[in-house]
């Protein structure tokens, strides 16, 4: 055995440790997203089974869903994926204000989408207890809406973090993770839109 160095030199400093752990958060987050997508898959397949086997799918008096306004809000949500990507682009070039601007814009677009959804919910003349159709509609849109809300909150957190000095110097895993989440939420919405509004 050779002589070991003094204790303090060998002891890991807490910072280096944090950094070592931080590397894995993106891996962990991606694994989590894959897992989360299965919940949606379960809801989607439940919806499909119920719809395909239903004797009477729409509740009495309901003709179908109006799709034009929701399509408009869909466009808003989907384009926010683009603005998020732009924000990331600015971040990678070190232009922190460009990042903040587009990041905030994406948050706003998400909020507009939620607003549109709230309006739609209030205008519908069926409720969550109106048969399987009502149950599925509100569960799916509500669960997705919760994800949009979580996305906005995550983005707010990242925005706030960007004001901490030197925080974004070496690239920020949180931003990558949040934007991945946002793209995920968008893709899910497109599928949902097809299932709920286009498939009738």
């Amino acid at each position, binding site marked *: 055995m050779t002589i070991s160095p003094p204790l303090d030199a060998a002891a890991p400093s807490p910072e280096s440790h944090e950094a070592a752990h931080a590397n894995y958060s993106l891996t962990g987050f991606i694994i989590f997203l894959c897992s989360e997508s*299965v919940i949606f898959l379960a809801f989607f397949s439940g919806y499909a089974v119920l719809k395909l086997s239903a004797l009477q799918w729409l509740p009495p008096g309901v003709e179908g869903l109006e799709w034009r306004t929701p399509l408009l809000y869909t466009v808003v949500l989907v384009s926010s994926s683009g603005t998020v990507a732009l924000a990331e682009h600015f971040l990678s070039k070190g232009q922190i204000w460009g990042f903040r601007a587009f990041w905030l814009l994406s948050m706003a677009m998400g909020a507009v989408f939620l607003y549109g959804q709230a309006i739609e919910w209030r205008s519908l003349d069926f409720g969550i207890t109106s048969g399987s159709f009502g149950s599925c509609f509100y569960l799916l849109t509500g669960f997705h809406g919760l994800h949009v809300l979580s996305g906005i909150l995550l983005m707010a957190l990242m925005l706030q973090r960007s004001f901490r000095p030197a925080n974004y110097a070496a690239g920020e895993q949180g931003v990558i993770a949040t934007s991945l989440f946002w793209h995920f939420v968008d893709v899910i919405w497109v599928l949902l839109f097809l299932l709920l509004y286009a498939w009738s």
Partner: protein
Amino acid sequence: MTSTAGVESRILRAPHPVPGAPDNWKRFFSFNTDAKVIGIQYIATALFFLLVGGLLAMIMRGELITPEADLVDRTVYNGLYTMHGTIMLFLFIFPVLNGLNNLLIPCMIGAPDMAFPKLNAAAFWLVPVFGVILMASFLVPGGPASSGWWSYPPVSLQNPLGHLINGEALWILAVALSGISSIMGAVNFVTTILRMRAPGMTLTRMPIFCWTAFSAQTIQLIGLPALTGGAVMLLFDLVVGTSFYRPEGGGDPVLYQHFFWFYSHPAVYVIILPVFGVFSELFPVYARKPLFGYPFVAGASLVIVGLSLIVWVHHMFPSGVPQWMRDAFMVTTMLIAVPTGIKVFAWLATLWGGKLRLNTAMLFALGGLFNFVFAGVTGIMLATVPVDIHVNNTYFVVGHFHYVIYGAATMGVYAAIYHWFPKFTGHMYYEGLGKLHFLLTFIGTSLNFFPMHPLGLMGMPRRVSSYDPEFAFWNVIASLGAFLLGVSIIPFLLNLVSSWVRGAKAPANPWNAIGLEWLLPSPPPAENFEEHVPTVISGPYGYGTGRPLVEHQDEIERALLQA
């Protein structure tokens, strides 16, 4: 400069200070982020709930020792088996396995801790939380959930007293929290295994236990969200009055069965895969031979993951599913026997001609393997549609799965606890008490669960508190076996407590085993090797080959002896 051994002598001599946490028993009652503390927290919590679930089982077997329903009320009996199953699965077997994962994975791959220590601690602390919620359901009006651990609608949707807070709602809440906790754990385990292995430890040099844990946790990640989704819909049906499963509103009760079994069949592999891992670790150690067919044993775990996701309908053969579905799922279910059989042959070949050392851990592993093979045969019988149509919902099924979950999985867990007890407590267990525990467990298991097979074939339905007197003979034997199993816990707990308190000091490697965890002192210091992780230079299980596992192995071993 680090020492030539690549491992600081400081680490090899270290006691086990946990940074920033009390260095005594109190650390087990704190929000500690050390995987080794969390592992023991999981195992202790699980053993507590094993006692609770066991007590409920004793009451049931007490009821069943006579044909009449004379000990408890019939509705109470419904609550008993529902809670027994739920507790044993969600509060005993899953937590105890996660405890093993926490103890073993970081040490075996040379990681200082789990990838996300705080998430790890949070996942653990959810267990007592939903444990309390589930226990609280004994106290609410109407009693606990009573629709079986399947919780099939429409029975589970009845809520006769009309209270918002009822046993069924608490049951769903507890299961959902359990799911969240397991997902948090699974993200952590998978990330740790993928990203934190020691230098030189390629996937093909990873111990089988880590392969099986990885496979099991992958199943959790894919399957649990489906169950959670299904459970959310059940909760809405129960509480809000939606119509996902309510036929009155156009819902489909069989849809729930699909969600439930899409997860709950794979869940049985979440249970048995880590136990396969335990077998694969223990047999080479105690037979002094390399594991036979390592790549096949490792690969078979992944095949099992894939297959386990496409067999669930074998639980629904009598549920009015179309005939093509029955045929297809019968075939996929039988295919599972292939990778499973590969593993069994690999273990037998490992044992063959070995110098067997029959200590308590090895006895439990051998007993577990024996019971597993028996249960595999009854499993294949059940997978055959014509047989299953005859015996589904009878005691034959109950016998099958208790052979697996008690006979194989729980005995495998006992094997693991004995085998790694010296490593993580620093004390040797008492061999005599251990062997007594094994003897009582093995005899108790056989007496308790074997009679269920003839009973099922004779037609005794499950989930009943009274039965035709023609079934009495086998039921008496089963009840006696159950009480014996209850007794068997006494030497076990006695052994754990007394050897931890005053057992002989354990050396670093009491079984002459090969593996990174045995190159750490007993108990390992917090953060294991820290950053002085030895470089792995060969595959696991090099028994009798003389190949060192890591660089500078001699020096590390010498230092451990001196320490």
